[in-house]
């Protein structure tokens, strides 16, 4: 809701903030917070360490020989965003919203393949029901005057608006299926990576590594390539009202909470929580603003 308000609220003739800059700030905040937690962990386990020792230990933990493994989820996340963008460009919003819920099922599939999770038939029924329920809540809303495609795009990719009508449904469907697969794979891969090495590498070190590698696509693809011209004209922090900072803080905090949730509960449980958040945000918006958002607020992907 806060994010929706930050993007659609009055701007007082100020240019609207660029989503790409917000993504970069969120990733930076997550990096700083994870660094702080990782430093605290090192200090707690080795109280005799001096500041220099702690920093040395921190550096060797972050740039350990296996840190490259975090390049994959960071890159896949970028690819997933591009596929979502391609899907939105080629599909109507309802088809996109419904088909993109497949990520709930692909996450389960990868949990079985990579983590050996066992799912009973009753749980499979529950997961299919969850997918249907979330899709129903997501597509419920006023279909009248507003352009769903524009709003979805604005939410996910910033202020870039689409040109022309939907060109190819097949291309869009392929993109959304691929995005769902990649979403499941990325989440479960990160879960496996963290859980496999939790005894020797802390969650916060993994988070620092992930945020570090996520900074590169956020900076080079989002900020410089996509919005470089707009930033040069208006500045990096143009349109950063207090509510924008609140959105950024919530996104960063949410990202850290998701990482904890994935580590100690798992991605399937996280998907249930995310689905519930969609319902809660729908109800809250309907009660508070007397109009449903119709936006995937709860599904806004948080890079963990």
């Amino acid at each position, binding site marked *: 809701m806060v994010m929706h308000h930050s993007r659609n609220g009055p701007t007082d003739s100020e240019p609207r903030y660029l989503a790409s800059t917000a993504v970069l700030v969120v990733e930076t905040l997550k990096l700083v917070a994870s660094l702080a937690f990782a430093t605290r962990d090192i200090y707690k386990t080795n109280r005799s360490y001096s500041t220099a020792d702690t920093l040395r230990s921190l550096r060797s933990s972050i740039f350990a020989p296996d840190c490259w493994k975090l390049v994959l989820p960071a890159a896949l996340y970028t690819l997933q965003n591009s596929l979502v963008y391609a899907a939105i460009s080629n599909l109507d919003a309802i088809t996109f919203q419904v088909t993109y819920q497949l990520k709930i099922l692909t996450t389960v599939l990868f949990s079985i393949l990579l983590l050996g999770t066992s799912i009973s038939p009753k749980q499979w029924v529950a997961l299919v029901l969850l997918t*249907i329920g979330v899709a129903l809540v997501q597509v419920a809303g006023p279909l009248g005057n507003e352009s769903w495609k524009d709003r979805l795009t604005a939410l996910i990719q910033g202020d870039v608006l689409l040109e022309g009508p939907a060109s190819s449904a097949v291309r869009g469907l392929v993109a959304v299926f691929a995005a769902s697969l990649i979403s499941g794979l990325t989440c479960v891969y990160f879960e496996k990576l963290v859980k496999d090495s939790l005894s020797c590498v802390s969650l916060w070190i993994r988070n620092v590594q992930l945020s570090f590698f996520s900074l590169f696509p956020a900076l080079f693809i989002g900020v410089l390539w996509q919005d470089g011209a707009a930033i040069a004209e208006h500045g990096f922090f143009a349109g950063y009202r207090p509510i924008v900072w609140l959105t950024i803080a919530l996104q960063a905090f949410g990202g850290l909470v998701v990482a904890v949730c994935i580590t100690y509960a798992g991605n399937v449980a996280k998907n249930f929580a995310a689905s519930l958040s969609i319902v809660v945000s729908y109800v809250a918006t309907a009660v508070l603003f007397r109009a449903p958002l119709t936006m995937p607020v709860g599904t806004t992907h948080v890079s963990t």
Partner: protein
Amino acid sequence: MFQRRIRWIANRVQATGGAAIVLLAMSLYQRGAVPRPVLLPLEKDKGSPSKTSKPLLFELMSAR
């Protein structure tokens, strides 16, 4: 105006139905969880209510 009203009601019904399905799915998922191994008391503990709640893992560790 009437059409908008109907659409508004239809959307609320759809969202409520979706929310109910999500809640049902959550409940069903918990109930359908694959049962974990039952923590049975060891033979020597039978009849001793104070020890029957000892977790199996603890018992195995003690035995080791």
